[in-house]
């Protein structure tokens, strides 16, 4: 059924359709409407699952990971400070190989206080062992949550579906909401190990030796490699079932392009319009959208970008003291590619500032005319934006 809904609402629809058995959550802007929508459905007897209204995000993640170890399907949503508060539990959830799914609505990290889109919150959780998927629009948000459960439950690694504050969370778009029957056939009942069986008593997550710890890390890294396969399979099967698929990355006109723009999330939608126009004007500009950040699809990116002489990465996030995080990751991923491209990093949209078509055009022009690549990121903002 086609509905005109916000991204938060789309995520909630997916959580309900996936027959999530435990939702543990705590309010935080701009995630709260997900929590409220699920509560409405619970009150109306339409949710099916159980809701736990914890006293913090930290406890919400504690509850999700514990229930997942017991073998049920769990979900939470958070943003910014709430995600940072969860940090310890994020490591724990992946370390004990749970299948928790979370929606992170990207929001600026304080200080200073702000409520706008900025990816630094989720990207700061890079090393926690979570799968991370960045969505471009409301439809992709809904679809990615459904895919996330399949992936997390098969690989036994938790999965974070990331949407942006306001641009996705609160903007309304037409969204195809699949029927329960079709979601049920795509996502069967959960079947992950149950760690607390009376017939088979074991001590889950005990203290281990140095060598054992190292071995578990290696197993988790292997699981991340396996996740790459599973994400691809699940995405293809999703495409066969629902007619939409996304890939690790999406490329537009990269063939023979003299410059490839690399974007993530909602900036991609604006970039599509700009690229289309510039291409009509005869410029050979391509576009690559990165959707999956962890595991980082190095091989796919190498293949996609190997022939690009110039690459410009736009980041709505910053690792202070370095540059945009997608830019760093991409550079590291391409370092062993046969034809090493020149990669220039741009920072745009930080703090949720607007990334308009003209802003993207400025980036393209700068990148095309630039003789020397600089190692520092180039800040691009609207005139008088501050």
């Amino acid at each position, binding site marked *: 059924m086609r509905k005109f809904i916000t991204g938060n609402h789309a995520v909630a629809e997916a959580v309900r359709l996936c027959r999530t058995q435990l939702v543990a959550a705590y309010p935080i802007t701009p995630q709260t409407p997900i929590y409220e929508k699920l509560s409405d459905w619970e009150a109306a007897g339409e949710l099916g699952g159980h809701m736990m209204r914890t006293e913090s995000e*930290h*406890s919400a993640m*504690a509850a999700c990971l514990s229930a997942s170890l017991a073998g*049920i399907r769990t979900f939470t949503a958070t943003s910014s400070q709430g995600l940072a508060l969860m940090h310890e539990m994020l490591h724990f959830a992946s370390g004990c190989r749970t299948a928790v799914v979370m929606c992170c609505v990207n929001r600026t990290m304080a200080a200073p206080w702000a409520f706008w889109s900025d990816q630094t919150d989720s990207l700061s959780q890079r090393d926690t062992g979570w799968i991370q998927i960045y969505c471009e629009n409301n439809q992709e948000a809904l679809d990615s949550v459904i895919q996330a459960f399949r992936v997390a439950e098969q690989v036994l690694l938790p999965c974070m579906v990331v949407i942006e504050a306001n641009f996705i969370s609160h903007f309304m778009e037409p969204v195809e909401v699949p029927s329960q029957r079709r979601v049920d056939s795509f996502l069967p009942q959960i079947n992950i190990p149950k760690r607390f*069986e009376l017939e088979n008593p074991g*001590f*889950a997550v005990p*203290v281990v030796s140095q060598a054992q710890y190292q071995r578990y890390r290696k197993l988790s890294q292997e699981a991340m490699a396996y996740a790459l396969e599973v994400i691809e399979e699940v995405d293809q099967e999703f495409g066969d079932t629902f007619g939409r698929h996304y890939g690790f990355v999406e490329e537009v006109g990269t063939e023979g392009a003299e410059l490839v723009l690399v974007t993530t999330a909602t900036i991609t939608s604006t970039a599509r319009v700009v690229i289309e126009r510039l291409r009509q004007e005869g410029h050979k500009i391509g576009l690559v959208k990165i959707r999956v950040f962890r595991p980082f699809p190095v091989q796919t990116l190498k293949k996609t970008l190997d022939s690009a002489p110039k690459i410009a990465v736009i980041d709505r996030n910053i690792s202070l003291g370095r540059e945009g995080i997608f830019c760093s990751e991409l550079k590291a991923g391409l370092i062993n590619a046969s034809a090493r491209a020149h990669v220039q990093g741009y920072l745009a949209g930080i703090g949720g500032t607007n990334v308009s078509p003209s802003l993207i055009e400025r980036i393209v022009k700068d990148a095309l005319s630039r003789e020397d690549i600089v190692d520092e990121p180039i800040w691009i903002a609207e005139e008088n934006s501050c």
Partner: protein
Amino acid sequence: MLVQDSAQPEEIMRPGHAACPGCGVAIGMRMVLRALGKRAVVVVVPSCVAVISGPYPHAAFEIPMFHSAFEIAAPTAAAIACALKVQGKDDIPVLTFAGDGGTFDIGLQSLSGAADRNEDFIYVCMDNEAYMNTGIQVSSATPQYAWTGTSPRGNVRGKKQIMEIMAAHRIPYAATACIGFPEDLQMKVKKARTIRGTRFLHLLSPCPTGWKMEEHMAPKVAVAAVETNIFPLYEVVDGLHYTINYVSKSLPVETYLNMQGRFSHLNREEIQAIQLEADRAWAVLKGKTNNKV
């Protein structure tokens, strides 16, 4: 009947565990689990409790257990209970052991949240009155004047009133217990088992290492804690109805203090202050009870 029950219990603790010799926490865990029975899931969090449970590949207890994180004993147990319910196994109780640090200090917020929601689990605070697992540092459960590694001149604060805090949540059941009174302890575990919602046991667990006593002293000092009214045995139902389970001999507090090296530096005034506080607290407790003591 109770005596017989505890004389022929179902043993869940296997031979061999990682506690110090004579550890009151290990004795307490053994008693609690014998009363609980094998049909249960147990959560432990970082503390001596987790150490006692054994490093991989050893497991001191023959029961499904989970070593969760320090400050989340309550939501961990609550969520496992919820999951078991979803799976149609809601007759399996979930019990969590946490230390005093994990209860009075770092885990208080998550415990309060879970108790406020009246989540369905048994919470057992194994109170050894300091951070013993990290080597004897002061916690908010450490009694006034007691020596610890981070209160070298004696703790300046008094012990936090955790039972009052839990009673204020109006949870269905809260009780104190100690290893010096095994029948009382096991009765309380069994009673807690029959109730649904958040159940809290505050279990005084003497620690020979941290309290600076001989290895055989843990049960004796636990008895002395009760007999001097330092640690009365009582229950609170629904946060309102108080019952004293054992009428003590009201011995002078020195009986208790003199057994422990952590109090050996105390002067007359300090001992007197402890006596006054014990008398006052006992009178207040008696005033709250429904039974005549």
